[in-house]
């Protein structure tokens, strides 16, 4: 398969790229840097078909109290965790549509789902991953009928090596929009 991994500056992304490469897939890796833009990255990837487009990161921002969290750091978290994957996915629609049984995958965190309330202090992560989930649902509604499967895999721990090794299998098997690291369906 032609696999593109976004976010290989993170240990998670690099490990996932290595898993796909070891299995013999054709892997392209994009390490995200702060001065990159979705438009520039999309242009650099070129107009070639993508079978699996996977967004990864290992972002683990500091906790904040509600009084201490600042507008600029909220904006930066929005740009990295929400706007980047959504915008880049939108820009690569044509390449995905040209792929074979294409899958668009966001590797997220279970802590961003709503059912667990205890997320105190996680203002720089949780709202923006949750927002990305909302936008992935929009992508799924619009692109699913066109044959692009849009999936979110919400990990408990991005440093869990076994979970990362299982990711390619979970990504192939996921039949609903949101699954956990074992492939079991999750609530939003």
């Amino acid at each position, binding site marked *: 398969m032609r696999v593109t991994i976004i976010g290989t500056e993170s240990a998670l992304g690099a490990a996932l790229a290595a898993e796909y490469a070891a299995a013999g897939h054709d892997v392209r890796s994009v390490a995200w840097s702060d001065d990159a833009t*979705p438009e520039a990255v999309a242009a650099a990837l070129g107009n070639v078909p993508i079978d699996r487009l996977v967004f990864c990161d290992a972002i683990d921002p500091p906790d904040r*109290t*509600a*009084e201490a*969290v600042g*507008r600029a750091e*909220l*904006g930066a978290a*929005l*740009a990295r965790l*929400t*706007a*980047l994957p*959504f*915008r880049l996915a*939108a*820009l690569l*629609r044509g390449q995905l549509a040209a792929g074979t049984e294409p899958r668009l995958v966001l590797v997220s965190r279970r802590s*961003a*789902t*709503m*059912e667990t*309330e*205890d*997320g*105190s*202090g*996680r*203002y720089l992560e*949780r*709202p*923006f*991953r*949750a*927002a*990305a*989930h*909302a*936008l992935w*649902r*929009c*992508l799924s*509604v*619009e692109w699913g009928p066109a044959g692009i499967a849009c999936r979110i895999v919400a990990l408990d721990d991005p440093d869990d090596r076994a979970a990362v090794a299982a990711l390619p299998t979970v990504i192939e098997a996921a039949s609903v929009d949101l699954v956990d690291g074992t492939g079991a369906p999750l*609530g*939003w």
Partner: protein
Amino acid sequence: MSTILIAGASRGIGREFVRQFVAAGWTVHATARDGTGAAVLAAEGALPHRLDITDDASIAALAQELAGRPLDAVIANAGISGDLSLPLGAVSGAELARVFDTNLFGVLRLVAALKPNLRAGERKLALAMSSLMSSISSNDWSTQYAYRASKTALNAAWRSLATEWRPEGIACVLLRPGFVKTDMTGHQGMEVADSVAGMRAVVEGLDLSDSGRVIGYDGLDVPW
């Protein structure tokens, strides 16, 4: 007598909240962005203040004006829809940033700045406006990308806030107005008076056990 601050009250749902809380005998502080809006609020019987929720200095100035006044409830009502005409591929990072700046960052920073007032109040209600659009499980027609994402993010932030402030007795609850006739909807939907009457009944009944919920004008929880 109970005291409330309604932020973003010049028009629509916020202005109707002012009317109904004044009629119910509450002391109502309310904000508008400009002098015309402030005059409207004074005419409705509220104590008017100026606030642009995207401006931290404006939030700080409001907190200064209200320093030492206990508030039973704050409703951070200000919100924008963003440009709803944009198709999925045209929603830029700047558009997301603009909508989030009001609907999440401003709302969170306002309520946090007024925490001392809420702690001093009796009811201790930190309220803001969610929407059915925040519900991912209900979304089977897409559209309204930046708005949806901002309201889902608000839900997530309020879940975290609920945990953080529970030990201090502050209930953090989001309200869903329904689909309501205001400028935001091009004046389609239900009457604003009915939506606000429903939400006011919800607010009257709230306590700490409701913290972390998103509750509709109809009393029903919004599914995640």
